[in-house]
């Protein structure tokens, strides 16, 4: 524990200002109600206030700030996607991330590491080449590299994978980075709150009422709010919210689990991902190895982590890094992922007037936090889908106009 923190424990008159307001009562009306005080919801509130001067905004959360998928991801940021729509979108996100610490006056521990997606067979290598070409065409630094170059970046890796599925190459993505996910949510909360946005934690939404003009009221246990604009930014629970307004989406909920090891000395300077081994690995600034795997195989609305996950993941990690066999797992957890059929998000306007969606974030939500907030704020302020998110609209499923991003998923599904 730092001495600074310890000092505050004994000072009655707490010197550090609260980062964000905690109003006890809801107002009768708000211009915009955002459901979900995670990174996306708070980022939208921040950009609504900063870019558009809309400050009569309430951000509601059934739990606490950043307690959902914002605090449950593995903090990887990248833009090496497969479709031009995805690449352009995530590239803008990285650009915003790079300047976010200054913009929010909060250190988000943004750390550019480079990102290797390992290819263990010809078909993965083919997809890697495809992604590299799309990326390069759009000015993103991605290239296919040989196993020797992977070894140079990460000398501890065992390229033969213990005798099966040897590494044949990798997609190297220079802008790949990590950042502290809680700090992103707190920073956006601080900035939005300073501009007048109200953040109501422990305020679940139990109903949304509509009238002939669209959205009319949001129902909570603390009272009914009159509003004409609602944004749903609730990763993992979107179908429960859309059901309140009578919209069906293709989203299905699957658990995604992750874990960290005990802190060890820094040895991993990059991010290693293997779709074939269903694992990804990076080292946090605290020295913990942050590891994740594929989605659980069955639909489940639960955040319980499982023993099978840890044993299965460790088995795969040890194929690449046998020297980690003595390292202990410190914590494990699960989040609920909004999975879409094309592995792209669902954003923007909906058939219900005044109801906006920022959803379908599956396993790719944290890296989009700033740009989703910015584009959703623009969409809400103008009531027109921002050009960057037009192809992510819900109506693409009705028209069979999907955005096929499955090949760019970090891990197999």
């Amino acid at each position, binding site marked *: 524990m730092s001495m600074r923190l310890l000092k505050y424990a004994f000072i009655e008159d707490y010197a550090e200002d609260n980062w964000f307001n905690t109003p006890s009562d809801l107002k009768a009306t708000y211009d915009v109600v955002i459901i979900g005080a995670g990174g996306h919801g708070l980022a939208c509130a921040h950009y609504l206030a900063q870019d558009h001067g809309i400050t009569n905004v309430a951000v509601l959360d059934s739990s606490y700030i950043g307690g959902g998928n914002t605090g449950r991801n593995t903090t990887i940021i990248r833009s090496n996607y497969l479709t031009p729509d995805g690449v352009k979108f995530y590239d803008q996100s990285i650009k915003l991330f790079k300047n976010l610490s200054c913009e929010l006056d909060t250190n988000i521990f943004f750390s550019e590491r480079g990102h290797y997606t390992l290819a263990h067979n010809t078909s993965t290598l083919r997809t890697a080449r495809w992604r590299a070409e799309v990326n390069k065409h759009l000015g993103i630094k991605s290239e296919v590299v040989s196993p020797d170059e992977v070894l140079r970046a990460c000398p501890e890796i065992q390229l033969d994978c213990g005798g099966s599925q040897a590494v044949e190459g990798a997609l190297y993505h220079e802008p790949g980075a990590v950042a502290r996910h809680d700090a992103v949510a707190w920073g956006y909360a601080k900035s939005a709150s300073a501009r007048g946005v109200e953040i109501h934690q422990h305020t679940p939404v139990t109903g949304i009422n509509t009238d002939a003009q669209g959205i009319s009221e949001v129902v909570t246990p603390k009272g009914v709010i009159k509003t004409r604009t609602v944004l749903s930014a609730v990763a993992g629970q979107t179908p429960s919210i859309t059901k309140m307004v009578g919209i069906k989406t293709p989203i299905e*909920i699957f658990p995604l689990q992750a874990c960290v090891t005990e802190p060890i000395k820094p040895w991993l300077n990059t991010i290693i991902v293997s779709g074939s081994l269903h694992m990804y690995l990076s080292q946090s600034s605290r020295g913990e190895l942050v590891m994740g795997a594929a989605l659980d195989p069955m639909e489940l609305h639960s955040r319980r982590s499982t023993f099978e996950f840890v044993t299965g993941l460790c088995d795969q990690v040890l194929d690449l890094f046998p020297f980690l066999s003595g390292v202990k797992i410190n914590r494990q957890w699960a989040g609920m992922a909004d999975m879409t059929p094309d592995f792209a998000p669902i954003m923007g306007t909906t058939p219900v007037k005044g109801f906006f969606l920022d959803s379908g974030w599956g396993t790719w939500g944290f890296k989009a936090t700033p740009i989703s907030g910015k584009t959703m704020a623009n969409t809400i302020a103008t009531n027109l889908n921002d050009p960057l998110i037009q192809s992510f609209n819900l109506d693409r499923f*009705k028209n069979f106009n999907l955005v096929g991003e499955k090949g760019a998923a970090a891990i197999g599904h």
Partner: protein
Amino acid sequence: MKFFEFPLLGTRAISEFVPAHDDVLEPINLADNISAGDWVYERDSVPKITTEFWYHSTSQIWFKVERNTGTNQIYSAEVLRE
């Protein structure tokens, strides 16, 4: 690890099974006011008790499993016959 008593197989870990989708789509009636896209993609993924089709790869037997998607509780499993 989660186990359940399956007919024919006895007590098995549920991780041994490959789940297939729960919905069995009825043929679309184009006269209804629903697009083919909605028919293919729309889901109702809220916590509920549902019937799923699980495949046990080593025995090559399909099961019809009743499960709560909110709590992961399994209520019943029966062998799926043609």
